């Protein structure tokens, strides 16, 4: 893997913000490329999109997405939100996450949005929600703490 320096990382984030070209962020983080995550920005919101892909299935009989993928997507959405909206001098580190699985997630395109419930100087407390066809029927939600400095 081609590693980048911390300076290159911060410069890439700054460039992405300036150009509002978020694909750079996903391209440089290998796990995001693996998940194929995209970002949509309707009305200045930051909505992450997890594409439909058979490799994310955890239960082929229902069928349903793997709970781990749903959790990973929620965590990813929180980190992307931090990178896109906050001044970052390093990659924020996740401290903990609690995922609540509300409904079986179908193997279809999934969306998620994060909000910073408390933007602290060192800790950002986040709440994240994922949904599929209907925003009013979330499939999972999570809260997480990130170390930001």
């Amino acid at each position, binding site marked *: 893997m081609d*590693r980048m320096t*911390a300076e290159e990382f911060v410069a890439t984030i700054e460039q992405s913000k300036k150009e509002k070209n978020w694909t750079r962020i996903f391209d440089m983080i290998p796990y995001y490329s693996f*998940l194929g995550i995209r970002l949509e920005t309707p009305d200045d919101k930051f909505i992450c999109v997890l594409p439909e892909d*058979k*490799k994310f*299935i955890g*239960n082929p009989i229902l069928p349903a997405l793997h709970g781990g993928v749903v959790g990973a997507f929620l*965590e990813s959405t929180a980190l992307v939100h931090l990178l896109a909206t906050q001044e970052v001098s390093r*990659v924020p580190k996740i401290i903990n996450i609690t995922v609540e699985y509300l409904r*079986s997630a179908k193997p279809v395109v999934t969306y998620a949005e994060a909000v910073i419930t408390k933007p602290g100087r060192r800790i950002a407390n986040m709440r994240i929600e994922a949904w599929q066809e209907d925003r009013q029927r979330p499939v999972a939600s999570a809260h997480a703490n990130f170390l930001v400095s």
Partner: protein
Amino acid sequence: MSTPFDITQIQNIIDTGIPHCAEIGMKVHEMDDDEVIFSLPYQDRFAGNPVNGILHGGIITTLIDTASGMCIYARLQKYLPIATLDLRIDYLKPAIPGEELFTRATCYKTTQQIAFTRAIAYHTDPNDPVANSVGTFMLKSSSGAALNKVTVGEG
């Protein structure tokens, strides 16, 4: 399922019944009635930090979620449909880039409808874990066939 429950069966479920686990290359390392241990070799494609190659927490979540589910089968000595209700993970220290990651999961309580699990992720020393987790699962979560119905047919 009445046949004895062993590592081969669990690995078969992983490889043929859970596409995402087969995709990431999870392996059953050890298993007994009390706990299961899974392993995942380090892979660049799961890095979350492009500067140092540290694994994304999400892949650890997947490893822990799967192991926590499987340890319920080990405790109950049978397969049944289960669904994760709640999973909390504390990330205690970064996973070391390049090193294989293990997850040990235990189901410490079951009721008629719910199972409670604990899990840790570590490299070599379970007393110095990368992550700690507690999970809650719903049992008999769907009326559909359990995962073994997939593997029995194919295996």
